[in-house]
């Protein structure tokens, strides 16, 4: 039976339930150690291309196309979150 869920500012997600696959857990913990480092101030911002929506059109945006301008890059948990 589906239960009614509380609605907060974090986007709710699910995932697999039951016994964990031991190998997968070990592996993901190892990769986490390597990848989980914050980027540093004073260093180059990692370049990326991302699809998006801009003033009535779907666009592709490449960060390095903005060289020569100041950029504010903002991440947020999800559309329709409240804050």
């Amino acid at each position, binding site marked *: 039976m589906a239960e009614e869920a509380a609605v907060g*500012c974090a*986007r709710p997600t699910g995932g697999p339930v039951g016994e964990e696959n031991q190998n997968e857990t070990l592996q993901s913990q190892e990769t986490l150690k390597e990848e989980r480092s914050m980027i540093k101030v004073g260093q180059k*911002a990692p370049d990326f291309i991302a699809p998006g*929506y801009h003033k009535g059109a779907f666009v592709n945006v490449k960060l390095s196309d903005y060289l020569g301008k100041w950029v504010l*890059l*903002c991440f*947020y948990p999800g559309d329709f979150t409240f804050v």
Partner: protein
Amino acid sequence: MSIDSMFVHKMWNDHELEHMVKGGIPYPMLSDAGGKVGTVYGVYDENAGVEARGRFIIDPDGVVQGYEVLTPPVGRNVNETFRQLQAFQLVRETKGGEATPSGWRPGKKTLKPGINLVGKVWKEWKTTDAFD
């Protein structure tokens, strides 16, 4: 940027944000499905499958000058972001000749780092200057 698709971005803009911002959101709303960009920037939470409220100031050379990361329930302070942006712009314009002390905002006094300022900051800057 969020993990939502550009289609959902359009719906959010058209059905909600346009009621708050006349003409809709003026800048690109980017999609980071899978959180690949967010992972590189250190703001993607694999367990929740979403990105934290990360904000990065990137200068015209593509260098990250500052960032702030908040958990989902607390919103940002846009004035503070603009204040920092103006401070970084001033430092860049003066080629590092001027620095902005704690509490600086446009119009307030800057400091000129150099041998004559060593041990003399107390003459140039008061703790009350740290506050608005």
